[in-house]
């Protein structure tokens, strides 16, 4: 067991990556679903084990092929990557379990093995970004996960998925190429690609201008991938027209992982030796976060397509996360990382509830679900409770991270009051858009809803698991809170 323990960082990537071709070779769709789910659960178990050892020891290092660190590729797991690994593998497992009954309606049976292979590659790519400590390796894994998720999104039955995915592909590739230019400039100046090594070499570089340009390219490229406000235009349509469980997976993971790389580069790599880097970072990010929060929530209030409404709400929630980061304090970063975790929980529960609704409702529009709560009580109850967590009602996970965010903004001086006002206004807007759906589902009547039936148990179980986790982590936020606060101190270079 201890021999295996040392190799867990590598296995985190290897297990889903090697399962992908196997899933494709199993021509029977049930078998390849079972394999994909098993691989995803196995990755989840590895993530839990890694998290436990991170809590115990503070971090893990792994030398790929035993090559010494700056020459070979090094893998590293710390509190921040452990937190994200839990989200990615957990959301993937829940979505795959739900996919057993949801995907048959959207993807032809004979194409499903290919679909599961793409899913596992996306999972391997996302895990790879989180475990690696090498700048170029991040690019490669980013493109593996991105190419696989383009395929996943394009699998949707609606033809509008295709233009949406083309836009996603173009913008995603521009983002990744910007990142590549930045890494190239850093390599030009420092001669190394290992993240920890870059930090020290930047201190020795005489001419910092190329490094500043690299910081700009990397930040903008990753902001594109993370859908930070004016660069979010690919997100609403890609989320809306993807197969429902793919939306669950992507909404919980892909933008969050890009945010992880953004935070890691700006705080761990650039902050220590670049003058006033945190100030520049805050000036770049703060206005964009506020705009994201206000515009995202406002558009969500007037959107009648349910999936697109939640997608716009994701734009706003990414704003909360970057707002916490732009405060450049331990409290702000803790809130931001905690919100990454809690928002992934709330959004995956909400999108899972929509996947349940989609079993009976052909078009997920607000006018089509009148009175459906009578026919699908469990589904709508799950939507309502997950919605409470998205709003941030006390007792739910969403409340904990918003509470930390508001506390952190209060500490940030006179500007803090304005920021708190923005957070409160946006939460009220969230009340409006969740309430519109709830009111329609509980208190109105339409004909289509009369024939609706409750979703199958295989879909309800993961949905309710996600909902209950929202309440569990609302009442006992211990583990994610501990991970986020030690990650925040790590990012700011202070000893915990």
């Amino acid at each position: 067991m201890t021999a295996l323990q040392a190799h867990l960082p590598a296995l985190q990537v290897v297990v889903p990556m090697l399962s992908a071709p196997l899933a494709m070779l199993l021509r029977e769709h049930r078998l390849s679903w079972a394999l994909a789910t098993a691989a995803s659960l196995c990755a989840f178990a590895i993530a839990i084990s890694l998290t436990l050892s991170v809590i115990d020891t503070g971090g893990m290092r792994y030398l790929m092929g035993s090559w010494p660190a700056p020459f070979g590729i090094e893998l590293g797991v710390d509190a921040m990557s452990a937190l994200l690994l839990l989200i990615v593998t957990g959301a993937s497992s829940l979505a795959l379990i739900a996919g057993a009954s949801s995907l048959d309606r959207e993807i032809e049976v004979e194409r499903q093995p290919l679909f599961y292979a793409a899913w596992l590659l996306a999972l391997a790519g996302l895990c790879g970004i989180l475990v690696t400590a090498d700048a170029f390796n991040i690019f490669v894994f980013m493109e593996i996960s991105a190419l696989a998720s383009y395929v996943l999104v394009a699998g949707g039955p609606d033809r509008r998925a295709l233009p949406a995915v083309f836009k996603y592909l173009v913008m995603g590739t521009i983002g990744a190429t910007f990142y590549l230019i930045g890494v190239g400039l850093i390599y030009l100046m420092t001669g190394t690609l290992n993240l920890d090594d870059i930090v020290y070499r930047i201190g020795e570089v005489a001419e910092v201008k190329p490094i500043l340009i690299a910081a700009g390219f990397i930040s903008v490229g990753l902001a594109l991938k993370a859908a930070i406000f004016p660069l979010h235009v690919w997100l609403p349509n890609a989320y809306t027209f993807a197969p429902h469980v793919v939306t669950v997976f992507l909404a919980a993971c892909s933008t969050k992982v890009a945010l992880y790389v953004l935070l890691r580069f700006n705080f761990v790599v650039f902050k220590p030796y670049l003058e006033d880097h945190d100030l520049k970072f805050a000036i770049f990010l703060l206005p964009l976060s506020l705009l994201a929060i206000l515009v995202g929530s406002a558009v969500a209030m007037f959107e009648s397509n349910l999936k697109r409404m939640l997608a716009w709400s994701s734009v706003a929630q990414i704003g909360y996360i970057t707002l916490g980061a732009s405060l450049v304090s331990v409290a702000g970063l803790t809130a931001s990382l905690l919100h990454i975790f809690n928002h992934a929980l709330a959004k995956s529960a909400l999108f899972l509830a929509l996947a349940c609704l989609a079993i009976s409702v052909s078009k997920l529009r607000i006018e089509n679900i009148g009175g459906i709560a009578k026919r699908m009580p469990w589904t709508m109850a799950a939507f309502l409770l997950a919605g409470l967590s998205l709003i941030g009602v006390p007792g739910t996970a969403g409340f904990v991270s918003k509470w930390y965010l508001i506390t952190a903004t209060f500490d940030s001086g006179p500007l803090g009051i304005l920021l708190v006002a923005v957070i409160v206004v946006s939460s009220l807007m969230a009340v409006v858009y969740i309430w519109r759906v709830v009111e329609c589902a509980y208190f109105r009547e339409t004909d289509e809803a009369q024939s609706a039936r409750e979703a199958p148990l295989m879909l309800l179980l993961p949905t309710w698991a996600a909902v209950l986790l929202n309440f569990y982590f609302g009442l006992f936020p211990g583990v994610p809170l501990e991970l986020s606060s030690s990650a925040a101190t790590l990012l700011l270079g202070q000893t915990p």
Partner: protein
Amino acid sequence: MNFLGIYYYWVFAILLMVGFYAVIAKLNLIKKLIGLSLFQAAVFLLYITVGKVEGGTAPIFASAAGERLFSNPLPQVLILTAIVVGISTTALGLGIIVRIKEEYGTIEEQEIQEIDRQ
């Protein structure tokens, strides 16, 4: 700083902007994809330029003793990977365009938007 000595970097910057312009300004999806490929190819040139050492040869181990000047092989290895990524992206993009043509009967962005609005 002499202009000619760094002209590789000018080629990189100009090619990058030509590709970027095509991605943004062209409405035909194929032309957009061509722009995207140019955009990526420009970055490949940047990496290869970085690794070039004046008068250096290929880094092959020579049995004869003596000092030899090598170009840095690492950026070339890196860019080999990036070229593979670029080819996969282009192939996937072309695949999506074929599907768009099948479903919509056009590959002009404006016409697709008009069809969707109906």
